[in-house]
């Protein structure tokens, strides 16, 4: 029986703990300074909006941890002594480990803006960020959000739920266009504006001005415009939260450097989730993976290694999801913001500008590369299988209804993409397979 200590009770650390418990009898301790129990970080916005309370965001009831002999410690790790295999906690206690997993997640980027540490200036990542936002958005006239990513648009939605006018500064020429292709990115621009957000593209923040109490009172843009506001959301990405690791002997770069087994430079120390940085990124993937799903996947794999079955991280096809106001986004496989010369795609967009389907494939082999969906739900299992098998665009379009995952009675758009296919490949047209519907149950 080994003593496993996990720093961080987010999705990565907790997944690792659960899987280690399932596979072994090791002693497991999870240390977190953030909350007593695991909660879903992605749901913080819904607490602010009043859809849920904190207790609803906890995926497991509080008795779960004791029952599964997972010891939870609420404290902050100040230092890691890898020679003596010991952690020092803020309350002065020391914690010894046989194996250590660092899963400390991220923190919002701050790029040295003047005024970035004023009251009312913050990111939106931790539970404490939520508490601060609750305090600093009371009775205010305007908020400015800086940085056009997923957290930025979620923060805009949060503020609008409290009827707070929002100015949204985005450095790029279109929202999230380093990830989204132009049409989808433009769709999100329209969505943001339709919710009466003052969206400023190609605009950066130069300065945050303080009032006499040390609280933000305005933002100055690089154009020199001063925008009065009482709250500034910093959402220009996140970076690994590894201050206490930097002081240790563990090798760090931007994140804690790990190999494909999540092993760090020091024996018996692993790192997973947002704070880990692969020494060599996997093909078509980033060296630091900062989404919920990868955090979970890292936790699953490191647990195997720790339980004696050394396993390399070998993720299946990429997938991700988000929600831009009322429009859901899903991606399966590799969809770049700008296609390579070797790539081609089918794209269809609804005339109301709230649904689109993009299917990217290899020009010469016709093999499926990725699917991008706005306002349409597709079936992960089917898309994953097509991607792994390298299904051709013809197979995909011909069987697209099998991939649809929208609720019953929803309008079906697969025939629209079929038309796009037929006009692109007039020599080998496909026929519609008809609608699903109420009596489809008798055909299965």
């Amino acid at each position, binding site marked *: 029986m080994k003593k496993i200590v996990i720093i961080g009770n987010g999705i990565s650390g907790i997944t690792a703990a659960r899987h280690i418990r399932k596979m072994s009898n090791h002693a497991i301790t999870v240390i977190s300074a953030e909350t007593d129990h695991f909660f879903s970080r992605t749901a913080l916005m819904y607490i602010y909006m009043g859809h849920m309370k904190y207790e609803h965001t906890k995926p497991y009831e509080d008795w779960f941890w004791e029952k599964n002999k997972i010891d939870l410690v609420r404290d902050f790790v100040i230092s890691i002594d890898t020679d003596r295999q010991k952690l020092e906690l803020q309350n002065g206690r020391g914690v010894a480990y046989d194996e250590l997993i660092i899963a400390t997640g991220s923190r919002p980027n701050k790029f040295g803006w003047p005024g970035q540490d004023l009251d009312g200036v913050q990111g939106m990542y931790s539970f404490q960020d939520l508490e601060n936002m609750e305090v600093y958005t009371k009775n205010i006239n305007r908020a400015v959000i800086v940085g056009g990513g997923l957290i930025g648009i979620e923060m805009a939605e949060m503020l609008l739920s409290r009827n707070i006018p929002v100015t949204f500064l985005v450095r790029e020429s279109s929202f999230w266009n380093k990830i989204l292709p132009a049409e989808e990115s433009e769709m999100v621009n329209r969505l943001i504006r339709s919710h009466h957000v003052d969206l400023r593209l190609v605009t950066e923040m130069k300065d945050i001005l303080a009032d006499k109490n040390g609280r933000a009172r305005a933002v100055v843009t690089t154009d020199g415009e001063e925008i009065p506001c009482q709250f500034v959301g910093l959402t220009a990405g996140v970076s690994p939260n590894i201050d206490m690791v930097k002081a240790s002997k563990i090798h760090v770069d931007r994140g804690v450097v790990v190999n494909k087994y999540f092993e760090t430079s020091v024996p018996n120390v692993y790192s997973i989730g947002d704070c880990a940085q692969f020494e060599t990124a996997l093909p078509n993937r980033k060296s630091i993976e900062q989404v*919920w799903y990868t955090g979970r996947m890292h936790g699953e794999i490191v647990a195997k290694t720790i339980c004696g079955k050394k*396993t390399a991280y070998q993720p299946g096809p990429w*997938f991700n999801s988000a929600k831009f106001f009322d429009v859901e986004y899903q991606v399966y496989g590799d969809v770049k913001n700008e296609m390579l010369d070797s790539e081609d795609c089918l794209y269809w967009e609804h005339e109301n500008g709230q649904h689109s389907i993009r299917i990217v494939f290899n020009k010469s082999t016709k093999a499926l590369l990725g699917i991008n969906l706005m306002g349409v*739900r597709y079936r992960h299992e089917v898309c994953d299988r097509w991607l792994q098998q390298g299904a051709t665009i013809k197979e995909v379009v011909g069987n697209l209804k099998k991939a649809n995952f929208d609720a019953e009675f929803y309008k079906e758009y697969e025939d629209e993409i079929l038309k796009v296919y037929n006009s692109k490949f007039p020599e080998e047209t496909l026929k519609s397979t008809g609608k699903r519907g109420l009596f489809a*149950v008798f055909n299965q």
Partner: protein
Amino acid sequence: MEKYIKNAGLVLFIIGFVVFVLSLSLSDYQLTDKIVGQQGEGEKYEALQKATKPMEGKLYDSNISFIRDLKKAIKSANKSIIDKYTIAEEIASEMALKSMDGDKFVFRKSVIDEVLPANGDVATEQNKSLKDFTGWLEGKEFSSRKELSDQLTSAIQNINNSLSYQKAFDDYSAKNLVFSMTKASSLGVLKGNIKLWFFLSFGLVIIGALAYFFGTYSNVPAGIKNNHIFMDALTSRGWIGVILGTFMIAFYIFLYFYPEYLTNWVLLVDPISYKLNGGPASHWFLYGFMYTFAVSVMGIRMLLKYWGNAYQLIRTASVIFFQFAIAFIIPEILISLNKPGYDFKNIWPLDYDFFYNYNLDQLMESGFLGWFMLFWGIALIIIAVPVITYFYGKRWYCSWVCGCGGLAETLGDPFRQLSDKSLKAWKIERWMIHAVLVFAVINTVAVLYTFFSGSYSLFGIGTETIKASYGFLIASIFAGVVGTGFYPLMGNRVWCRFGCPLAAYLGMVQRFKSRFRITTNGGQCISCGNCSTYCEMGIDVRWYAQRGQNIVRSSCVGCGICSAVCPRGVLKLENGPEEGRLDVANLIGNKEVEKV
């Protein structure tokens, strides 16, 4: 503009609601000779006439004192009749003495004629019933006078006890009497202007509510509208929720047990009752009317709130239709045609009195239509439930057709997030709902046994006792007072989840032999918890979704809200092949997935 409509609607709603509540005190009451005379003929009504004499002509300004006096009068009428027919227990001893036969005591009927001769009407009846009740003692030998005397005393006591329902007003008819006499004795502004007061109460409530909903939801993009639900005092068990819950609980207690205090509300719907079925309204008509309008008005709110979600729109239209047409209008029309007021979509054992003798008798006396209803009702139980549930899951009934489900999905929608999701609640739910099913089956077996055999005792337990306890505990307290009254406190499906015996039956089919499931979309779940929070049945949907497992639960009513509120498109209600439906978790992500 929308804001003004919304606020105006709220004001109208509040005015209407206040008028509605105050209207209960708007009448004066005066009992007349004529009203008493209309109640019926016979000895007990003559006694009633006599007992109510002091009340006649007296003007009461509150129904509380009126009802108090009326109940006293009925009690005294009952007492005068019972006193008149009561047989003195002392005669038992006298009869026993007269039965002495040497050193034994042998009972012969003739002794009754000696002690209680049939002189005059009362004595004749007493004489006759004593003979009936002692028939089994004829010729029996007793060793002591006391033994025989005890037997006779107990016979006399039985006769005396039966007088209250044989000769006088029993509890049930006394209740009806108080209700109809109070209603008929109402006087004053309300009765003089029923249509006006109907408009000022029901009318303003309905118009106000609709305006509020249109103002809230029109011109808002389609999508999830759950902002501030856990900050609102109405929807998060705050003070408004507690007040509303208290009001609803009180409403159900009065409706079931003290309807005589609600006669003003019943008067308001009298004109509608006359139009629909040709007769005056009862408190059950009032309830049916309020129920139907609650489903319809709050159904419109549901349509507006989920505009853009086809599943919710069609489902909500369905529950409104079934409540309005099938449960309310058609039975009323049937009654006006002198046919059984049958609700074609109500299924035993939710329709717990379907096999009660009065219902069976009525159906069998109503010609072809009655027999059709009888067979239709049985076919629903043994064919429709298993077959349709196999193909579509129990949702076809619970969230598309059922009246209780209809109310829960419309009036109850603002409270769905208040259901308890804990594992403990699930454990309680499982034994409780199945216990009610067993109780419902025992109750039905008992009443059918009585129907066919004529005996009122099954294994030593009185069938009427079983029937009465089911009616009180389950049908009134559980389904009504708790099931609906507690919407703002415990969520909108308390009855459906913990009590409904039909839901238990449908659930067994759904769990073990059905094509229905909620599919989890591979590895897309982010454990946010919206699905579990908004599950009215208290299913921890997320627990399944985050491990990539399909949700197959006997309690799931297939309302589809988990799928609607999911921000990542992870959940889909669907009917598919049985194979693989119950498979364990298959979380997509890593190439090599450990099934944990």
